[in-house]
């Protein structure tokens, strides 16, 4: 039995932008085992939400993740509308869908650039991010913000997209299409990219089902799982689109799925804009007076997979319990299957291929003593420490 070296990736490492730790147990270049630690960035958002009103929660959940900053409000709105049995006007449904799909394009472009960067292909990085800028321009035009769009509210959306803007948005979308096709060609026809990504990080259908992976990670293994299709919400049942899958099971298949999904998203947005122009301008939300006691859950397909929100209400104006499950939480676990037996060079691109988002996934971490295995601190202790600190600060003031 040869000695295994531990190669750490993280907590701060050029591979990932967010703090997390992967321990690769290697023999030479081959990864034999993998362990990961998250919890560097826990913010207690579920707890914070219990002290906010229903309308304020939108702005908090928007900040769970900087990249998919509309999928969390989307899922939360779905949950709240289930609790309050609120109907959403058609125009709001279309606007929600447009924002969600624009976000998918921008997130996938961001991922494509990063994947190129991880492979040492910085030209792809810069090009993909340059074209992502065009999407952000559309966001700025339609919502007023480049990120954290603040578009959602219970029963509809906050801002309308006026009919006079529709032709402009369409023009901007048309300008993006050739760029997406260019990137598609650049990635699909590059023999060196094929050499680096094909047959790397295989996740079979069974693995996906065992680990419950979602989103493009699952669709790249031939499983057509997509909340937009399986549990239709917003305007997705009203437009014509298909779920993109691939049977490659490897990193290349994940790239392919994401690239084709971007083109599909462009077509969804196009149809939404067309249909939206026939609805009445200005009717973008149904006013909601109060939310009864009860519970509801909402799902939305984020760029990374299914986002799940559970809200329990008690008749007051804030959630009694709010539970969030982000897609990376299930996708990260598949590393155990896909990384082991690969080289370190491949392991890094496999880690990036599920497009992990650690700030969505962060959970409460407990500190254990290394030697005795005893728990040193739990959540209550940490709350106590935090309150003590606040008290001390107040004393000083």
């Amino acid at each position, binding site marked *: 039995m040869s000695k295994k070296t531990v190669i750490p990736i993280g907590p701060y*490492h*050029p*591979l990932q932008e967010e703090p997390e730790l992967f321990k690769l147990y290697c023999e030479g270049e081959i990864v034999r085992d993998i362990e990961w630690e998250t919890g560097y960035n826990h913010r207690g958002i579920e707890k914070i939400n219990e002290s906010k009103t229903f309308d304020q929660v939108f702005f908090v959940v928007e900040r769970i993740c900087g990249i998919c900053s509309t999928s969390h409000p989307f899922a939360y709105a779905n949950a709240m509308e289930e609790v309050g049995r609120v109907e959403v006007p058609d125009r709001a449904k279309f606007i929600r869908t447009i924002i969600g799909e624009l976000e998918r394009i921008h997130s996938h472009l961001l991922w494509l650039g990063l994947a190129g960067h991880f492979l040492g292909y910085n030209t*792809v990085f810069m090009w993909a991010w340059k074209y992502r800028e065009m999407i952000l321009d559309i966001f700025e035009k339609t919502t007023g913000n480049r990120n954290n769009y603040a578009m959602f509210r219970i029963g509809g959306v906050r801002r309308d997209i006026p009919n006079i803007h529709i032709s402009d948005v369409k023009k901007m979308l048309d300008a993006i299409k050739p760029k997406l096709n260019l990137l598609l060609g650049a990635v699909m026809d590059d023999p*060196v990219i094929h050499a*680096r990504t094909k047959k790397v990080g295989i996740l079979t259908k069974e693995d996906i089902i065992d680990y419950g992976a979602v989103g493009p990670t699952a669709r790249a293994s031939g499983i057509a799982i997509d909340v937009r299709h399986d549990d239709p919400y917003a305007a997705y049942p009203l437009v014509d689109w298909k779920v993109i899958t691939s049977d490659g099971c490897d990193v290349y298949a994940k790239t392919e799925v994401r690239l084709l999904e971007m083109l599909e998203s462009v077509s969804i947005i196009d149809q939404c804009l067309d249909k939206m122009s026939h609805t009445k301008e200005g009717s973008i939300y149904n006013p909601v007076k109060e939310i009864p006691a009860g519970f509801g859950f909402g799902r939305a397909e984020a760029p990374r997979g299914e986002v799940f929100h559970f809200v329990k209400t008690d008749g007051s104006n804030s959630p009694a319990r709010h539970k969030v499950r982000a897609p990376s939480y299930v996708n990260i676990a598949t590393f155990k299957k896909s990384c082991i037996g690969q080289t370190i*060079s491949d392991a890094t691109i496999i880690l990036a291929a599920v497009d992990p988002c650690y700030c969505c996934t962060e959970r409460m971490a407990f500190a254990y003593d290394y030697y005795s295995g005893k728990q040193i601190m739990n959540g209550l202790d940490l709350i106590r420490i935090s309150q003590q600190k606040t008290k001390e600060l107040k004393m000083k003031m």
Partner: protein
Amino acid sequence: MIKDLFYFLIFPGMIFSVLMGGILSWSDRKITARVQFRKGPPFLQPFYDIGKLFYKETILPEHGARLTFLAAPVFALFSATLANVFILLPSIFPGSGFKGDLIVVFYLLTIPSLSYIIGSLASGNPLASLGASREIKLIMSYELTFILALACIVIKSGMSLSISDIIAAQQEGGAFIGSVSGVLLFIVILFVIQAKLALVPFDMSEAETEIAHGVFIEYSGSAYAIIKMARYIMLFTLPSLMMTLLMGGFSLSGFGILWSILKLVVILLLITLIRNTNPRLRLDQAMRFFFIWMNLIAVIAIGLSIIKL
């Protein structure tokens, strides 16, 4: 003695080649930036980099072999400089050099990589040792190709092992690149240069996103500045070796200077374009690339040069 020191330290040695290497490094970064829709650094940026590093604190690894760790960059710098002097002097003073300096240059060009390996292993960092092991495997794969290419050039120049004879042979019979085997050699040596400079697609020994600059991870301050200088010199030395061996060498008179600069720029442009249009290869893929394809091309070139093609 003083003349030799002048050759070594000022022209065409250390100072001149660092300057040239810095300029080439700037053009490489500028071209890269333009390809990627960026603005790129100002002209003096490579020299600002070195200057700043000399002011910075040099942090030594706590559990490493410190003397070896610090000596390695100096070895790299001196051997790169020496190789540069041996390559350029025969172009500047025709007929200088000695019999067999081609072999000396071959060895001197290997020493920078070897000293990076020794220095990184002395630091005791697991990522550095991983980078060192990758570098060793990479050296083993491309050196054979390199020596085959050099052998082919020796055959083409009529069995001469001295650089000035190779230049003289090209001045009589035209540059070697004008023949079929010369073009093949150009391709082979271009990829060897790419690997020796540790540029994409052969940068796995320092792969930033995998092992965080691998062999250089522990270097900082002046030690890293010396490494940067050695790398600038290599960026100038290897293309000029290519020019000397295949494209008739440098010339310092009239239009000759412009012609030399043009050759240098073309080689640099090719290197930069290769590095900007490829992702990093995996180690086993790089080894297969050199062992099978590049060696095959080099052997074909040798065969062609024997029948004078």
